[in-house]
C-alpha cells in the first residue's frame, strides 16, 4: 500500500472533497439556524453568524408546541414498524426456506409478484380499506400496512436457505419446538441479515412522506416529515426558523447513529453467509 504515494494523494483528495460536499449543506443549515432573520434576508454567505443567537430555537418551541410530539410519533412508528417487520419477515422467510406445507410454492410466487408492484397502485384502495377499519389518523394505520415487506421476506428466505441445518437439528434434539428453535436459536444467529433489514426498514418508515400525508390528519398525529412540511407552510421565508426546526429534527438521529455506528457497515449484508 505504501508503494504509490500519488494514488494515495488522489484518494485523499477524493475523500476530503466529498466530505466537504457532504458537510457543507449541514453546516450551512446549522449556521443559518443561529442567525437572525435580518442576517438571513441580507443574503450574506458567512458561515459564522455575525450576531450569534439561539432565539430561533426558543421561538420555534414556543410557536410550535407539537415539536416533541412529532418526533415521538416518528420514532414510535418507525421503531414498532421495524420490530414487526423483523419478526414477521423472518418468520415467513424461515417458513419458505425450511418448512414444507401445501401452497408454499404459490405463496412464494405471489410474494415475488408483490415485490414488483409499486405501492402507488395500492395507495387509493389502501386508503379506503383503512377508512373502513377506522384506522385513518391512527398509529396502527401507519404501522400495520407496512409491517411486512416482500423484499425482505425474499431476502430472509435466501438467508435461511444457506443457514447451516446442524444448528436446528441440535436444537430439535434438545427438545425445542419449531417456535422455540426459531426464536431462541435461529433468529439470534441471523443478526447480520437482521441488521441490514433494520436499517432499510427504519429509514423507510422514518422518511416516509406520502403515506402519512394521506393517512394522518390530526396535527398531533403528524410524523416529523409531515410536521416539518406543515411548519414550512406556516413560516414560509422564515428560513432561520425552518433551519432551526430542521436541525432539531436531525440531531436525535445523529446521536443515535453515534451510538450504533459500529453496527452499521458490518451489518449491511444482503446474502446469507455461504
Amino acid at each position, binding site marked *: *500500500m505504501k508503494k*504509490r504515494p500519488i*494514488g*494515495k494523494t488522489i*484518494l485523499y483528495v*477524493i*475523500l476530503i472533497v466529498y*466530505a466537504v460536499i*457532504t458537510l457543507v*449543506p*449541514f453546516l*450551512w*443549515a446549522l449556521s443559518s439556524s443561529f442567525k437572525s432573520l435580518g442576517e438571513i434576508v441580507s*443574503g450574506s*454567505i458567512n458561515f459564522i453568524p455575525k450576531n450569534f443567537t439561539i432565539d430561533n430555537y426558543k421561538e420555534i418551541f414556543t410557536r410550535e408546541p407539537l415539536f416533541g410530539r412529532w418526533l415521538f410519533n416518528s420514532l414510535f412508528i418507525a421503531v414498532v414498524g421495524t420490530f414487526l417487520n423483523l419478526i*414477521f419477515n423472518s*418468520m*415467513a422467510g*424461515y*417458513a419458505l426456506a425450511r*418448512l*414444507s*406445507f401445501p401452497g*408454499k410454492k404459490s*405463496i412464494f410466487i405471489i410474494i415475488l409478484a*408483490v415485490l*414488483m*408492484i*409499486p405501492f*402507488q*397502485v395500492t*395507495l*387509493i*384502495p*389502501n386508503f*379506503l380499506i383503512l377508512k373502513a377499519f377506522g384506522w385513518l389518523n391512527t398509529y396502527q394505520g401507519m404501522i*400495520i*400496512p407496512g*409491517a*411486512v415487506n*416482500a423484499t425482505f*421476506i425474499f431476502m430472509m428466505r435466501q438467508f435461511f436457505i444457506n443457514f447451516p441445518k446442524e444448528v436446528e437439528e441440535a436444537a430439535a434434539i434438545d427438545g425445542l419446538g419449531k417456535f422455540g428453535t426459531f426464536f431462541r436459536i435461529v433468529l439470534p444467529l441471523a443478526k447480520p441479515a437482521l441488521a441490514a433489514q433494520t436499517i432499510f426498514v427504519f*429509514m423507510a418508515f422514518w*422518511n416516509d*412522506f*406520502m403515506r402519512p400525508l394521506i393517512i394522518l390528519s390530526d396535527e398531533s398525529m403528524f410524523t416529523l*416529515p*409531515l410536521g416539518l*412540511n406543515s411548519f*414550512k407552510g406556516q413560516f414560509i421565508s422564515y*428560513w432561520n426558523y*425552518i*433551519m432551526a426546526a*430542521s436541525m432539531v*429534527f*436531525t440531531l436525535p438521529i445523529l446521536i443515535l447513529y453515534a451510538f450504533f455506528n459500529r453496527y*452499521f*457497515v*458490518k451489518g449491511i449484508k444482503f*446474502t446469507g453467509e455461504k
Partner: protein
Amino acid sequence: MVKSSSSKKLRREAGQGYLFMAPVLIILGIFVIAPILCAIYLSFHKVELLGGTHLEFRGLDNFMKITFDDRAHIALKNTFIYVVIVVPLQTLLALVLAASLNAGMKGQKFFRIVYFLPTLTSSAVLTLIFMWMYNQNGLINHILDMLHLPTYNWIGDPSVALLAIMIMNIWATAPFFMVIYLAALQDIPDSHYEAAELDGATGLQKFWHITVPNLRPVTSFVVIMGLIGTFQLFDQSYIFSGGSGGPNNSTLTVVLLIYQYAFKSLGTMGYATALAFMLAIIILIATLLQRKFSKEESLY
C-alpha cells in the same frame, strides 16, 4: 403406524408453516392483494368519493385518457430523464466512494461517519435545506458566482428545477448505496488483490479488473433499488413545488401526477389508478431489462 405418525408429523409441520406465514399472509392479503384487486376494479370506473361514493363504469376510458393527457406525457418524460441520469450517476458515485473508503486509508472511520449523514437525515429535512441553498440569493448561487459560473433561479426556473432535484437526490442517495458496496467490498478475498499486485497491476487496474466484476451482484441490486426508487420520485417534487409539479410542470413526476389526480382534482381517482398501473408496468419492464443486461440471478 409409521405411516400415520409421519403424516401426523407432516400435518404438524404444515400447521406450523401456516402459523409462521400467518402475519404475512393476513397483512399482504388485506393491504396489498385486496387493494390490487380493488385498484383493478376502480381503474375501469369514474370514481368520485367526495359526498358519498359514486362509481360509474367507463370501460377502458381511463387507460385511453393516458394517451391524450399531455401532463401524463410530461410526467413520464420528466421521470424518464430523471431515472436515466440519476441511477447511473448515483451508482457510480457510490462505487467510487466505497472503493476509496475501502483502500485502507487513515481516518476512513471519520469519512465513513460523515458520508453516511445524508442517509440518516429525513428527506423532508434535506429538501428544505437544499431549497434554502438553492434560493436566488442562496449559498449555491454565491459559490457559482465566486467561481464565475452562471447562477440560476433553481426553484423558479423550469429549465433547471428538475436538475436541482437530481443533484440533491444523487447527493442524498449515493452514500446509502455506498454502504452496501462497502459491505460487499469487505467480502472480496484479499488474495485476489495480492495475486494482481504480484502481476504488477496498478490501483486503477485492480479496481476495474477485480473490484468491479466482484461487485456485479451487488451492483445489480443497487441498480434495481435505484430504478424502483427513482421511478417513484415524489417527496422532493412535492415539497419543492408545493404539490404542483411546477414551475411549468418541470418537476411533475408520474407519482406526483397520480397523487394529484387521486387527491387534488375531483372525480379522477379511477384515472389515477390507471396511471398507477401504467407505472407498475414500466417499473416491471425496467427491472426485467436490467436483469437481462446484467444476467445476474443471485439476488432476484
